[in-house]
Protein backbone atom coordinates (compact mmCIF):
# COMPACT_ATOMS: atom_id res chain seq x y z
CA UNK A 1 0.00 0.00 0.00
CA UNK A 2 1.39 3.37 -0.98
CA UNK A 3 1.85 6.10 1.58
CA UNK A 4 -0.60 8.44 -0.19
CA UNK A 5 -3.26 5.76 -0.10
CA UNK A 6 -2.64 5.28 3.61
CA UNK A 7 -3.03 9.01 4.27
CA UNK A 8 -6.19 9.08 2.15
CA UNK A 9 -7.78 6.23 4.11
CA UNK A 10 -6.68 7.74 7.42
CA UNK A 11 -8.23 11.10 6.51
CA UNK A 12 -11.41 9.33 5.47
CA UNK A 13 -11.55 7.38 8.73
CA UNK A 14 -11.01 10.51 10.84
CA UNK A 15 -13.64 12.40 8.85
CA UNK A 16 -16.15 9.58 9.15
CA UNK A 17 -15.45 9.30 12.87
CA UNK A 18 -15.98 13.02 13.38
CA UNK A 19 -19.12 13.14 11.28
CA UNK A 20 -20.62 10.08 13.00
CA UNK A 21 -19.93 11.41 16.48
CA UNK A 22 -21.13 14.90 15.55
CA UNK A 23 -24.36 13.58 14.08
CA UNK A 24 -24.88 11.31 17.09
CA UNK A 25 -24.36 14.25 19.47
CA UNK A 26 -26.79 16.46 17.57
CA UNK A 27 -29.26 13.60 17.24
CA UNK A 28 -29.74 13.85 21.01
CA UNK A 29 -30.56 17.55 20.62
CA UNK A 30 -32.93 16.98 17.72
CA UNK A 31 -34.60 14.10 19.49
CA UNK A 32 -35.45 16.43 22.37
CA UNK A 33 -36.61 19.13 19.99
CA UNK A 34 -38.78 16.66 18.05
CA UNK A 35 -40.21 15.31 21.30
CA UNK A 36 -40.97 18.84 22.42
CA UNK A 37 -42.65 19.56 19.09
CA UNK A 38 -44.83 16.44 19.35
CA UNK A 39 -45.79 17.23 22.93
CA UNK A 40 -46.38 20.94 22.30
CA UNK A 41 -43.45 22.10 24.41
CA UNK A 42 -40.41 24.26 23.61
CA UNK A 43 -37.63 21.81 24.43
CA UNK A 44 -34.02 22.72 25.29
CA UNK A 45 -33.45 26.44 24.67
CA UNK A 46 -31.05 27.64 27.39
CA UNK A 47 -27.55 26.72 26.17
CA UNK A 48 -26.76 29.02 23.26
CA UNK A 49 -29.24 30.22 20.61
CA UNK A 50 -32.15 27.73 20.30
CA UNK A 51 -30.23 25.56 22.75
CA UNK A 52 -27.80 24.29 20.10
CA UNK A 53 -24.97 24.01 22.63
CA UNK A 54 -27.04 21.54 24.67
CA UNK A 55 -25.16 18.37 23.50
CA UNK A 56 -21.83 19.95 24.51
CA UNK A 57 -23.25 20.88 27.91
CA UNK A 58 -24.55 17.32 28.36
CA UNK A 59 -21.18 15.83 27.37
CA UNK A 60 -19.32 18.16 29.75
CA UNK A 61 -21.66 17.27 32.56
CA UNK A 62 -21.12 13.53 31.99
CA UNK A 63 -17.34 13.99 31.98
CA UNK A 64 -17.29 15.82 35.30
CA UNK A 65 -19.45 13.29 37.14
CA UNK A 66 -17.76 10.86 39.50
CA UNK A 67 -16.63 7.70 37.69
CA UNK A 68 -18.02 5.12 40.06
CA UNK A 69 -17.59 1.33 39.99
CA UNK A 70 -19.84 -0.59 42.38
CA UNK A 71 -18.02 -2.78 44.94
CA UNK A 72 -19.83 -5.96 43.85
CA UNK A 73 -19.21 -5.42 40.15
CA UNK A 74 -16.75 -7.39 38.00
CA UNK A 75 -14.36 -4.49 37.50
CA UNK A 76 -12.84 -5.19 34.08
CA UNK A 77 -16.01 -6.46 32.46
CA UNK A 78 -17.84 -3.46 33.90
CA UNK A 79 -15.38 -1.17 32.13
CA UNK A 80 -15.39 -3.24 28.92
CA UNK A 81 -19.19 -3.20 28.47
CA UNK A 82 -19.63 0.42 27.31
CA UNK A 83 -16.44 0.18 25.27
CA UNK A 84 -17.72 -2.81 23.29
CA UNK A 85 -21.08 -1.12 22.77
CA UNK A 86 -19.40 2.00 21.35
CA UNK A 87 -16.86 0.05 19.27
CA UNK A 88 -19.43 -2.14 17.52
CA UNK A 89 -21.70 0.84 16.89
CA UNK A 90 -18.88 2.81 15.25
CA UNK A 91 -17.46 -0.07 13.17
CA UNK A 92 -20.52 -0.53 10.95
CA UNK A 93 -20.01 2.89 9.35
CA UNK A 94 -16.76 1.76 7.75
CA UNK A 95 -18.29 -0.30 4.92
CA UNK A 96 -21.08 2.10 3.94
CA UNK A 97 -20.53 3.81 0.57
CA UNK A 98 -21.25 7.49 1.11
CA UNK A 99 -21.02 8.62 -2.51
CA UNK A 100 -19.40 8.06 -5.90
CA UNK A 101 -15.66 8.62 -6.32
CA UNK A 102 -14.34 12.10 -5.64
CA UNK A 103 -11.32 13.43 -7.59
CA UNK A 104 -9.05 15.50 -5.34
CA UNK A 105 -5.60 16.82 -6.41
CA UNK A 106 -5.58 14.45 -9.37
CA UNK A 107 -6.33 11.41 -7.21
CA UNK A 108 -9.46 9.35 -7.11
CA UNK A 109 -10.85 9.10 -3.60
CA UNK A 110 -13.49 6.42 -2.97
CA UNK A 111 -15.88 7.76 -0.36
CA UNK A 112 -16.03 4.44 1.46
CA UNK A 113 -13.48 3.34 4.04
CA UNK A 114 -13.44 -0.32 3.00
CA UNK A 115 -15.12 -1.80 -0.05
CA UNK A 116 -15.08 -5.43 1.05
CA UNK A 117 -16.98 -7.96 -1.03
CA UNK A 118 -19.05 -9.10 1.96
CA UNK A 119 -20.03 -5.63 3.19
CA UNK A 120 -23.58 -6.43 4.24
CA UNK A 121 -22.45 -9.53 6.16
CA UNK A 122 -19.85 -7.37 7.93
CA UNK A 123 -22.68 -5.11 9.11
CA UNK A 124 -24.80 -8.09 10.21
CA UNK A 125 -21.78 -9.46 12.09
CA UNK A 126 -21.19 -6.27 14.01
CA UNK A 127 -24.90 -5.98 14.73
CA UNK A 128 -24.90 -9.47 16.18
CA UNK A 129 -21.90 -8.86 18.43
CA UNK A 130 -23.27 -5.48 19.50
CA UNK A 131 -25.35 -7.36 22.02
CA UNK A 132 -22.20 -8.27 23.99
CA UNK A 133 -21.72 -4.68 25.15
CA UNK A 134 -25.14 -4.72 26.74
CA UNK A 135 -24.90 -8.27 28.08
CA UNK A 136 -21.44 -7.89 29.61
CA UNK A 137 -22.28 -4.53 31.13
CA UNK A 138 -25.58 -5.76 32.51
CA UNK A 139 -24.11 -8.91 34.01
CA UNK A 140 -20.95 -7.29 35.40
CA UNK A 141 -23.01 -4.71 37.28
CA UNK A 142 -24.15 -7.51 39.62
CA UNK A 143 -27.59 -6.02 39.91
CA UNK A 144 -30.75 -7.96 39.15
CA UNK A 145 -32.37 -5.11 37.24
CA UNK A 146 -29.29 -4.76 35.06
CA UNK A 147 -29.32 -8.50 34.45
CA UNK A 148 -33.00 -8.43 33.48
CA UNK A 149 -32.27 -5.60 31.08
CA UNK A 150 -29.32 -7.46 29.58
CA UNK A 151 -31.32 -10.67 29.13
CA UNK A 152 -34.23 -8.83 27.55
CA UNK A 153 -31.89 -7.00 25.19
CA UNK A 154 -30.11 -10.15 24.08
CA UNK A 155 -33.20 -12.27 23.51
CA UNK A 156 -34.81 -9.42 21.60
CA UNK A 157 -31.77 -8.79 19.42
CA UNK A 158 -31.31 -12.49 18.58
CA UNK A 159 -35.00 -12.87 17.68
CA UNK A 160 -35.13 -9.86 15.40
CA UNK A 161 -31.80 -10.57 13.74
CA UNK A 162 -33.37 -13.58 11.97
CA UNK A 163 -36.12 -11.64 10.19
CA UNK A 164 -33.62 -8.90 9.42
CA UNK A 165 -31.20 -11.41 7.90
CA UNK A 166 -33.91 -12.91 5.69
CA UNK A 167 -34.81 -9.42 4.40
CA UNK A 168 -31.15 -8.84 3.64
CA UNK A 169 -31.10 -12.13 1.72
CA UNK A 170 -33.96 -10.92 -0.51
CA UNK A 171 -32.02 -7.75 -1.28
CA UNK A 172 -28.87 -9.76 -1.99
CA UNK A 173 -30.89 -11.98 -4.34
CA UNK A 174 -32.15 -8.89 -6.16
CA UNK A 175 -28.71 -7.37 -6.71
CA UNK A 176 -26.63 -10.55 -6.85
CA UNK A 177 -23.83 -9.30 -4.61
CA UNK A 178 -22.96 -8.94 -0.94
CA UNK A 179 -20.92 -5.81 -1.55
CA UNK A 180 -22.75 -2.65 -0.47
CA UNK A 181 -21.31 -0.71 -3.39
CA UNK A 182 -22.72 -3.22 -5.88
CA UNK A 183 -26.06 -3.14 -4.09
CA UNK A 184 -26.14 0.67 -4.40
CA UNK A 185 -24.98 0.64 -8.03
CA UNK A 186 -27.79 -1.79 -8.88
CA UNK A 187 -30.30 0.87 -7.77
CA UNK A 188 -29.13 3.49 -10.28
CA UNK A 189 -31.27 6.61 -10.55
CA UNK A 190 -34.76 5.96 -9.22
CA UNK A 191 -34.52 2.16 -9.49
CA UNK A 192 -34.69 1.76 -5.71
CA UNK A 193 -35.21 -1.57 -4.01
CA UNK A 194 -38.08 -0.24 -1.91
CA UNK A 195 -40.34 -0.22 -4.97
CA UNK A 196 -39.67 -3.92 -5.58
CA UNK A 197 -39.46 -5.03 -1.95
CA UNK A 198 -41.82 -2.87 0.14
CA UNK A 199 -42.56 -5.74 2.51
CA UNK A 200 -38.87 -6.45 3.12
CA UNK A 201 -38.36 -2.75 3.80
CA UNK A 202 -41.13 -2.63 6.43
CA UNK A 203 -39.80 -5.74 8.17
CA UNK A 204 -36.21 -4.52 7.99
CA UNK A 205 -37.25 -1.19 9.46
CA UNK A 206 -39.11 -2.82 12.36
CA UNK A 207 -36.10 -5.04 13.03
CA UNK A 208 -33.76 -2.03 12.98
CA UNK A 209 -35.92 -0.44 15.65
CA UNK A 210 -35.54 -3.58 17.74
CA UNK A 211 -31.80 -3.93 17.07
CA UNK A 212 -31.05 -0.38 18.15
CA UNK A 213 -33.22 -0.85 21.27
CA UNK A 214 -35.40 2.08 20.36
CA UNK A 215 -38.99 2.57 21.41
CA UNK A 216 -41.40 0.80 21.00
CA UNK A 217 -38.88 -2.02 21.51
CA UNK A 218 -36.84 -0.43 24.31
CA UNK A 219 -37.71 -3.06 26.89
CA UNK A 220 -34.04 -3.43 27.81
CA UNK A 221 -34.13 -0.01 29.45
CA UNK A 222 -37.76 0.02 30.45
CA UNK A 223 -37.66 2.48 33.35
CA UNK A 224 -41.14 1.70 34.64
CA UNK A 225 -40.16 -1.94 35.29
CA UNK A 226 -36.36 -2.08 35.51
CA UNK A 227 -35.24 1.27 37.02
CA UNK A 228 -32.79 1.97 34.16
CA UNK A 229 -32.34 -1.45 32.57
CA UNK A 230 -28.86 -2.71 31.73
CA UNK A 231 -27.17 0.60 32.62
CA UNK A 232 -28.73 1.00 36.07
CA UNK A 233 -25.35 0.88 37.85
CA UNK A 234 -23.52 3.06 35.36
CA UNK A 235 -22.70 6.72 35.78
CA UNK A 236 -20.46 9.37 34.31
CA UNK A 237 -19.04 8.86 30.81
CA UNK A 238 -19.55 5.07 30.91
CA UNK A 239 -23.28 5.75 31.01
CA UNK A 240 -22.65 8.40 28.36
CA UNK A 241 -21.02 5.78 26.14
CA UNK A 242 -24.07 3.51 26.33
CA UNK A 243 -26.45 6.34 25.52
CA UNK A 244 -24.16 7.65 22.81
CA UNK A 245 -23.69 4.22 21.23
CA UNK A 246 -27.46 4.06 20.81
CA UNK A 247 -27.44 7.29 18.80
CA UNK A 248 -24.43 6.18 16.76
CA UNK A 249 -26.19 2.95 15.82
CA UNK A 250 -29.33 4.99 15.08
CA UNK A 251 -27.30 6.93 12.53
CA UNK A 252 -25.61 3.88 11.00
CA UNK A 253 -28.82 1.87 10.76
CA UNK A 254 -30.54 4.81 9.06
CA UNK A 255 -27.62 4.87 6.62
CA UNK A 256 -27.93 1.10 6.06
CA UNK A 257 -31.66 1.41 5.40
CA UNK A 258 -31.05 4.12 2.82
CA UNK A 259 -28.30 2.05 1.18
CA UNK A 260 -30.30 -1.18 1.02
CA UNK A 261 -33.74 0.15 0.11
CA UNK A 262 -33.52 3.80 -0.96
CA UNK A 263 -30.63 3.72 -3.36
CA UNK A 264 -27.93 5.22 -1.13
CA UNK A 265 -26.34 8.08 -3.04
CA UNK A 266 -28.53 7.56 -6.13
CA UNK A 267 -31.07 10.21 -6.95
CA UNK A 268 -33.39 10.78 -9.93
CA UNK A 269 -31.74 12.66 -12.77
CA UNK A 270 -28.20 11.75 -11.67
CA UNK A 271 -27.13 11.06 -15.26
CA UNK A 272 -27.05 14.82 -15.94
CA UNK A 273 -24.05 15.25 -13.63
CA UNK A 274 -20.61 13.71 -13.47
CA UNK A 275 -17.30 13.97 -11.63
CA UNK A 276 -17.12 15.89 -8.38
CA UNK A 277 -20.55 17.53 -8.80
CA UNK A 278 -22.13 14.08 -8.88
CA UNK A 279 -20.12 12.99 -5.85
CA UNK A 280 -21.15 16.00 -3.78
CA UNK A 281 -24.80 15.74 -4.84
CA UNK A 282 -24.56 12.04 -3.96
CA UNK A 283 -23.37 12.89 -0.45
CA UNK A 284 -26.27 15.35 -0.11
CA UNK A 285 -28.76 12.70 -1.31
CA UNK A 286 -27.31 10.06 1.02
CA UNK A 287 -27.41 12.31 4.08
CA UNK A 288 -30.89 13.61 3.26
CA UNK A 289 -32.20 10.05 3.23
CA UNK A 290 -30.29 9.18 6.40
CA UNK A 291 -31.58 12.21 8.28
CA UNK A 292 -35.11 11.46 7.14
CA UNK A 293 -34.87 7.97 8.64
CA UNK A 294 -33.39 9.34 11.86
CA UNK A 295 -36.45 11.60 12.02
CA UNK A 296 -38.76 8.62 11.42
CA UNK A 297 -37.05 6.82 14.31
CA UNK A 298 -37.81 9.82 16.56
CA UNK A 299 -41.33 10.07 15.19
CA UNK A 300 -42.05 6.44 16.09
CA UNK A 301 -40.48 6.75 19.53
CA UNK A 302 -42.64 9.68 20.54
CA UNK A 303 -45.85 8.26 19.02
CA UNK A 304 -46.10 4.55 19.77
CA UNK A 305 -46.14 3.20 23.34
CA UNK A 306 -43.82 0.42 24.43
CA UNK A 307 -44.66 -3.23 23.69
CA UNK A 308 -45.12 -5.87 26.36
CA UNK A 309 -42.38 -8.49 26.28
CA UNK A 310 -44.63 -11.38 25.16
CA UNK A 311 -46.06 -9.16 22.41
CA UNK A 312 -42.52 -8.42 21.29
CA UNK A 313 -41.60 -12.09 21.03
CA UNK A 314 -44.93 -12.92 19.36
CA UNK A 315 -44.40 -10.23 16.74
CA UNK A 316 -40.82 -11.28 16.07
CA UNK A 317 -41.19 -15.03 15.83
CA UNK A 318 -44.77 -15.56 14.68
CA UNK A 319 -45.29 -12.62 12.33
CA UNK A 320 -42.10 -11.10 10.99
CA UNK A 321 -40.12 -14.29 10.38
CA UNK A 322 -42.86 -16.21 8.48
CA UNK A 323 -43.76 -13.13 6.41
CA UNK A 324 -40.14 -12.50 5.50
CA UNK A 325 -39.60 -16.17 4.55
CA UNK A 326 -42.67 -16.08 2.28
CA UNK A 327 -41.42 -12.81 0.80
CA UNK A 328 -38.04 -14.41 0.14
CA UNK A 329 -39.64 -17.44 -1.54
CA UNK A 330 -41.78 -15.23 -3.80
CA UNK A 331 -38.75 -13.14 -4.72
CA UNK A 332 -36.84 -16.31 -5.59
CA UNK A 333 -39.71 -17.59 -7.75
CA UNK A 334 -39.99 -14.28 -9.62
CA UNK A 335 -36.23 -14.18 -10.23
CA UNK A 336 -36.29 -17.79 -11.45
CA UNK A 337 -39.22 -16.98 -13.75
CA UNK A 338 -37.42 -13.96 -15.21
CA UNK A 339 -34.33 -16.06 -15.82
CA UNK A 340 -36.52 -18.45 -17.77
CA UNK A 341 -36.33 -21.52 -15.53
CA UNK A 342 -39.96 -22.51 -16.13
CA UNK A 343 -39.84 -22.49 -19.91
Amino acid at each position, binding site marked *: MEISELIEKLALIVALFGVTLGIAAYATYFERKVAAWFQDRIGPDRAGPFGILQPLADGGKLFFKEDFIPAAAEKWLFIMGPGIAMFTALMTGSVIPWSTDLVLFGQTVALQVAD*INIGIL*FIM*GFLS*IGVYGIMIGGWASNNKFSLYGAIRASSQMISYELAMGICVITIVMMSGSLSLRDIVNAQHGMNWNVFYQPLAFVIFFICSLAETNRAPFDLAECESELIGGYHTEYGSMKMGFYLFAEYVSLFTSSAVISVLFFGGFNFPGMDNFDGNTLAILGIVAMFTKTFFFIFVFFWIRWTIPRFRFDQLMHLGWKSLIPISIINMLITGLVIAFNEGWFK
Partner: protein
Amino acid sequence: MSLETITTILGGLTIGAALMVVISRHPVRSVLYLVLTFFLISSNYILMNAQFLAVVNIIVYAGAIMVLFLFVLMLLNLDKDSEPKTHILVKIASVVAGGILFTVLIAALKDGIALGEAAAASAQNNEGLVQNLGQLLFSKYVLPFEVSSVLFIASMVGAVLLAKREKQVID
Protein backbone atom coordinates in the same frame (compact mmCIF):
# COMPACT_ATOMS: atom_id res chain seq x y z
CA MET B 1 6.07 -7.10 9.28
CA SER B 2 5.77 -10.15 7.10
CA LEU B 3 2.71 -12.33 6.74
CA GLU B 4 4.42 -15.15 8.61
CA THR B 5 5.04 -13.07 11.74
CA ILE B 6 1.40 -11.99 11.76
CA THR B 7 0.30 -15.61 11.38
CA THR B 8 2.56 -16.68 14.23
CA ILE B 9 1.35 -13.92 16.56
CA LEU B 10 -2.31 -14.59 15.70
CA GLY B 11 -1.85 -18.34 16.14
CA GLY B 12 -0.22 -17.80 19.53
CA LEU B 13 -3.02 -15.48 20.64
CA THR B 14 -5.63 -17.99 19.46
CA ILE B 15 -4.06 -20.83 21.42
CA GLY B 16 -3.64 -18.57 24.46
CA ALA B 17 -7.31 -17.53 24.39
CA ALA B 18 -8.37 -21.16 23.90
CA LEU B 19 -6.27 -22.19 26.92
CA MET B 20 -7.85 -19.43 29.01
CA VAL B 21 -11.26 -20.95 28.23
CA VAL B 22 -10.16 -24.10 30.06
CA ILE B 23 -8.07 -22.45 32.79
CA SER B 24 -10.40 -19.69 34.01
CA ARG B 25 -12.55 -20.86 36.90
CA HIS B 26 -15.52 -18.64 36.28
CA PRO B 27 -17.95 -20.04 33.64
CA VAL B 28 -18.95 -16.61 32.30
CA ARG B 29 -15.31 -15.67 31.82
CA SER B 30 -14.72 -19.00 30.05
CA VAL B 31 -17.50 -18.18 27.61
CA LEU B 32 -16.11 -14.71 26.99
CA TYR B 33 -12.68 -16.18 26.29
CA LEU B 34 -14.35 -18.61 23.89
CA VAL B 35 -15.91 -15.65 22.08
CA LEU B 36 -12.45 -14.10 21.86
CA THR B 37 -11.14 -17.40 20.46
CA PHE B 38 -13.78 -17.33 17.73
CA PHE B 39 -12.73 -13.81 16.80
CA LEU B 40 -9.10 -14.86 16.57
CA ILE B 41 -10.02 -17.89 14.47
CA SER B 42 -11.93 -15.55 12.16
CA SER B 43 -8.88 -13.34 11.82
CA ASN B 44 -6.89 -16.42 10.82
CA TYR B 45 -9.53 -17.13 8.16
CA ILE B 46 -9.09 -13.60 6.83
CA LEU B 47 -5.34 -14.20 6.53
CA MET B 48 -6.18 -17.27 4.44
CA ASN B 49 -8.29 -15.06 2.15
CA ALA B 50 -11.54 -16.66 3.35
CA GLN B 51 -13.53 -13.55 4.24
CA PHE B 52 -16.92 -15.13 3.88
CA LEU B 53 -16.06 -17.95 6.25
CA ALA B 54 -14.61 -15.43 8.73
CA VAL B 55 -17.74 -13.30 8.85
CA VAL B 56 -20.10 -16.28 8.95
CA ASN B 57 -18.04 -17.72 11.80
CA ILE B 58 -18.54 -14.48 13.74
CA ILE B 59 -22.24 -14.19 12.94
CA VAL B 60 -23.11 -17.80 13.75
CA TYR B 61 -20.76 -18.68 16.60
CA ALA B 62 -19.85 -15.41 18.31
CA GLY B 63 -23.09 -13.65 17.47
CA ALA B 64 -25.72 -16.30 18.05
CA ILE B 65 -24.55 -19.51 19.72
CA MET B 66 -22.26 -17.94 22.31
CA VAL B 67 -24.89 -15.33 23.19
CA LEU B 68 -27.25 -18.19 24.04
CA PHE B 69 -24.50 -19.87 26.12
CA LEU B 70 -23.90 -16.63 27.98
CA PHE B 71 -27.62 -16.19 28.41
CA VAL B 72 -27.99 -19.53 30.17
CA LEU B 73 -24.87 -19.07 32.32
CA MET B 74 -25.94 -15.62 33.47
CA LEU B 75 -29.30 -17.01 34.54
CA LEU B 76 -27.72 -19.95 36.38
CA ASN B 77 -25.42 -17.59 38.31
CA LEU B 78 -22.71 -20.21 38.89
CA ASP B 79 -19.97 -19.47 41.42
CA LYS B 80 -16.77 -21.17 42.47
CA ASP B 81 -18.58 -22.52 45.53
CA SER B 82 -21.39 -24.14 43.59
CA GLU B 83 -19.00 -26.11 41.39
CA PRO B 84 -19.60 -29.80 42.10
CA LYS B 85 -16.76 -31.83 43.63
CA THR B 86 -15.65 -34.44 41.12
CA HIS B 87 -14.39 -37.88 42.09
CA ILE B 88 -10.72 -38.67 41.46
CA LEU B 89 -11.70 -41.52 39.09
CA VAL B 90 -13.71 -39.10 36.95
CA LYS B 91 -10.70 -36.81 36.75
CA ILE B 92 -8.41 -39.67 35.64
CA ALA B 93 -11.00 -40.79 33.08
CA SER B 94 -11.29 -37.28 31.66
CA VAL B 95 -7.50 -36.94 31.39
CA VAL B 96 -7.32 -40.27 29.51
CA ALA B 97 -10.18 -39.27 27.19
CA GLY B 98 -8.62 -35.88 26.53
CA GLY B 99 -5.25 -37.50 25.82
CA ILE B 100 -6.79 -39.89 23.31
CA LEU B 101 -8.54 -37.02 21.53
CA PHE B 102 -5.24 -35.14 21.47
CA THR B 103 -3.51 -38.12 19.85
CA VAL B 104 -6.20 -38.32 17.18
CA LEU B 105 -5.85 -34.60 16.49
CA ILE B 106 -2.06 -34.89 16.22
CA ALA B 107 -2.50 -37.76 13.77
CA ALA B 108 -4.92 -35.67 11.73
CA LEU B 109 -2.57 -32.68 11.80
CA LYS B 110 0.35 -34.81 10.58
CA ASP B 111 -1.45 -35.25 7.26
CA GLY B 112 -2.70 -31.71 7.44
CA ILE B 113 0.77 -30.15 7.37
CA ALA B 114 1.41 -31.39 3.83
CA LEU B 115 -2.04 -30.13 2.78
CA GLY B 116 -1.43 -26.79 4.46
CA GLU B 117 1.85 -26.32 2.62
CA ALA B 118 0.10 -27.05 -0.64
CA ALA B 119 -2.58 -24.51 0.25
CA ALA B 120 0.03 -21.93 1.26
CA ALA B 121 1.83 -22.47 -2.04
CA SER B 122 -1.33 -21.42 -3.83
CA ALA B 123 -2.12 -18.65 -1.35
CA GLN B 124 -3.65 -16.66 -4.16
CA ASN B 125 -6.43 -19.23 -4.44
CA ASN B 126 -9.71 -17.42 -4.02
CA GLU B 127 -11.70 -20.39 -2.84
CA GLY B 128 -12.77 -18.60 0.34
CA LEU B 129 -14.32 -15.73 -1.59
CA VAL B 130 -18.08 -15.89 -1.61
CA GLN B 131 -18.67 -16.48 -5.33
CA ASN B 132 -16.27 -19.41 -5.53
CA LEU B 133 -17.47 -20.87 -2.25
CA GLY B 134 -21.06 -20.69 -3.49
CA GLN B 135 -20.13 -22.40 -6.76
CA LEU B 136 -18.38 -25.18 -4.85
CA LEU B 137 -21.20 -25.66 -2.35
CA PHE B 138 -23.86 -25.91 -5.05
CA SER B 139 -21.93 -28.09 -7.49
CA LYS B 140 -19.30 -30.38 -5.98
CA TYR B 141 -20.59 -30.49 -2.41
CA VAL B 142 -24.31 -30.08 -3.08
CA LEU B 143 -25.35 -33.38 -1.50
CA PRO B 144 -23.59 -32.92 1.89
CA PHE B 145 -24.74 -29.30 1.91
CA GLU B 146 -28.42 -30.20 1.41
CA VAL B 147 -28.23 -33.17 3.79
CA SER B 148 -26.88 -30.93 6.55
CA SER B 149 -29.95 -28.72 6.16
CA VAL B 150 -32.11 -31.79 6.87
CA LEU B 151 -30.05 -32.27 10.03
CA PHE B 152 -30.83 -28.72 11.12
CA ILE B 153 -34.54 -29.18 10.46
CA ALA B 154 -34.49 -32.38 12.51
CA SER B 155 -32.84 -30.65 15.47
CA MET B 156 -35.28 -27.76 15.25
CA VAL B 157 -38.25 -30.10 15.22
CA GLY B 158 -36.72 -31.89 18.20
CA ALA B 159 -36.37 -28.66 20.16
CA VAL B 160 -39.95 -27.63 19.39
CA LEU B 161 -41.20 -31.07 20.42
CA LEU B 162 -39.35 -30.90 23.76
CA ALA B 163 -40.78 -27.46 24.46
CA LYS B 164 -44.32 -28.63 23.60
CA ARG B 165 -44.13 -31.70 25.83
CA GLU B 166 -43.12 -29.61 28.83
CA LYS B 167 -46.08 -27.35 28.27
CA GLN B 168 -48.54 -30.27 28.31
CA VAL B 169 -47.21 -31.40 31.71
CA ILE B 170 -47.77 -27.93 33.13
CA ASP B 171 -51.37 -27.85 31.87
